[in-house]
């Protein structure tokens, strides 16, 4: 369950005056699918199926005037015919019918609607007019709206996959995305790796619920430890600044559209250097929001920020079975401002007694090709007190690798070249909430995120 108390009342936002918190979106008691369909290729079918298969505990009502039953569930003819207690409607009907549907939802006591349908502001002036009607209907009836033109909402901790594809893995990263596909890709990776997500929201045209509402909500959500967002722009800068500055959880944003928009030739140097992207950089830096450069970077940063403990310092020891990977890690560590410190003499001496003669006792510490979980464990235990962070690289199919690492310990785990063993051990580590990174570069860069805002001042 998401935990959140109270009603959000924001002065100056008429849409919110009559509204409820976003609980109805994330944790509804029961759900209606408006425009449920029996045709397997339609979203009205796919979403209904996903809600049912994700294990949603409440009632699910397909609404379709022409069908009697879809996926074994009896259909309700209209929104007005729905039983009481429906908190959330997922709307997948032609755009022109959506404003009325939203009004009907309000009438029936439904508190929130996720509008999947397209054909609104993204499609021209007529669509924009329809979207204004949706906002009007929502405002009058106090319905909170996600979308329109979106890919829905997924809350694995509530068994609610009002979205696609069907993903159910529970985790601690919340994903907010202005692009359905980009957000779904992130959640897909997290699910495939058995790391999971705490929530996924596709913003669509964000006619009502925007990234700021969601950050405000997720800040209080017990399952969310880090928020990852893909945005093309911030909708309401003033409120965003206010909400983010009291969020208290790490946020990483991939903001696209980084070209020269807003920059123009000007007489003042300041104007000619102040492009839109520079101003976003400024906004994010001063709010201590991490900025991702790519989709992979967004994913890696979110993993690190959600699961890696904050280091006490920058001194790292790399423990590896792959010499090349160790050197790559060292390069990235140097570029990322980490310190690859020498092994203290007595520690090196002690290790010489513990390890086979061909191991290279230095930093990186190379166990070479026959590194085993047992050898890793010895090294990890002996060196832990002497470094701020251990970078543990499993560079082969190392059996029982997951037993080497400790959840919550200052350990960065990188696993590569391990094929099926790697995939199994990575899933085991992810289920222990120890994040695993696929390359030295991606692991070290993610670790460096934890230092990003330290010692900023001159």
């Amino acid at each position, binding site marked *: 369950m998401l935990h959140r108390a109270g009603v959000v009342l924001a002065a100056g936002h008429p849409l919110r005056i009559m509204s409820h918190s976003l609980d109805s979106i994330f944790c509804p008691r029961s759900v209606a699918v408006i425009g449920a369909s029996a045709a397997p290729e339609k979203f009205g079918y796919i979403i209904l199926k996903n809600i049912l298969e994700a294990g949603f505990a409440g009632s699910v009502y397909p609404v379709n005037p022409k069908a009697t039953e879809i996926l074994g569930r009896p259909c309700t003819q209209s929104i007005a015919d729905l039983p009481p207690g429906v908190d959330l409607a997922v709307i997948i009907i032609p755009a022109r019918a959506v404003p009325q549907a939203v009004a009907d939802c309000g009438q029936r006591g439904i508190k929130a609607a996720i509008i999947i349908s397209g054909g609104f502001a993204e499609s021209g002036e007529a669509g924009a007019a329809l979207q204004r009607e949706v906002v009007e209907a929502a405002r009058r009836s106090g319905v909170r709206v996600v979308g329109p033109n979106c890919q829905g909402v997924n809350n694995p901790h509530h068994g609610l996959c009002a979205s696609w594809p069907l993903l159910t893995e529970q985790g601690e990263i919340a994903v907010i995305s202005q692009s359905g596909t980009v957000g779904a890709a992130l959640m897909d990776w997290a699910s495939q790796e058995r790391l999971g997500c705490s929530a996924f929201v596709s913003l669509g045209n964000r006619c009502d619920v925007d990234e700021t509402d969601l950050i405000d909500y997720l800040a209080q959500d017990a399952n969310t430890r880090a928020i990852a967002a893909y945005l093309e722009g911030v909708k309401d*800068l003033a409120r965003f*600044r206010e909400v983010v500055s009291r969020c208290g959880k790490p946020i990483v944003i991939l903001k696209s559209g980084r070209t020269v928009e*807003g920059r123009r030739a*000007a*007489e*003042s*140097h*300041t*104007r*000619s*250097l*102040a492009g*839109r992207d*520079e*101003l976003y*950089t*400024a*906004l994010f*830096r*001063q709010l201590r929001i991490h900025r991702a450069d790519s989709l992979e970077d967004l994913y890696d940063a979110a993993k690190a920020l959600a699961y890696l403990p904050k280091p006490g310092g920058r001194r790292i020891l790399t423990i590896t079975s792959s010499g090349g990977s160790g050197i790559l890690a060292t390069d990235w560590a140097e570029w990322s401002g980490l310190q690859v410190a020498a092994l203290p003499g007595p520690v090196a001496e002690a290790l010489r007694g513990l390890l086979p003669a061909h191991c290279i006792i230095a930093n990186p510490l190379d166990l070479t090709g026959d590194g085993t979980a047992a050898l890793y464990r010895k090294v990890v235990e002996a060196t832990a007190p002497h470094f701020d962070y251990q970078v543990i690289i499993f560079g082969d199919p190392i059996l029982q690798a997951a037993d080497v690492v400790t959840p919550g310990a200052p350990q960065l785990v990188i696993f590569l070249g391990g094929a099926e063993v790697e995939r199994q051990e990575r899933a085991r580590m992810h289920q222990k909430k120890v994040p695993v990174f696929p390359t030295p570069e991606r692991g070290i860069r993610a670790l460096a995120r934890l230092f990003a805002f330290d*010692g*900023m*001042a*001159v």
Partner: protein
Amino acid sequence: MTTPPAGDRTRWLPEPEALRLLADYSLPVIAHRLATTPEEAAQAARDLGCPVVLKVVSPEIPHKSDVGGVRLNVATPEDAAAAFTAIQTQVTSHVSRFTLHGILVAKMAAPGTEVIVGMVRDPQFGPAVMVGLGGIFVELYKDVAFRLPPLTPAEARAMLGELKAAPLLTGYRGQPPRDVDALAACACTVARIAAEHPEIQEIDLNPIIVRERGCMIVDAKILVHE
């Protein structure tokens, strides 16, 4: 010349007005006088103490040095009078019609590290304050950092810390550390000016010369909306 957005009426404040506005906020501006004759230029040089710099003041000429409107390191009051006449002649040969408000005579600033502090008002973000290193080369290096006001001294220092050339401020290769607090205070004051003067669209304080103790605004451009 700048092409302001259609329908906008903006103008650059004459530099003496810009400097006065900054001085009203207790910002450190270089000592200066406005001269309208060669004799006044000589007297100003005498009062301020040489060397001095002379700069043309005209709303039509924002890029003063491009048209021969600036004389640096003028060593005597007599040279100042001659420089006055020379600037007038030279600018006339470059610019066919312009309003001459006079010629600004300012004290040459003692050397230090040259930085820029600026402000722009963005239609979406509102005011943004910029700091950067490199003085006149700032657009070449693009070593700048922005913040959105309000700005605290700590955040201003964080902003300076983002610059690649920040070591130039903190003492690079035996150079003395510069007065970062004074510079941070300047940036905070610029943020305050932006908040209190919605008509101001852009500010360039470039360069500000930062020394071991204190800093000095040597050149100021302020664009106002009318």
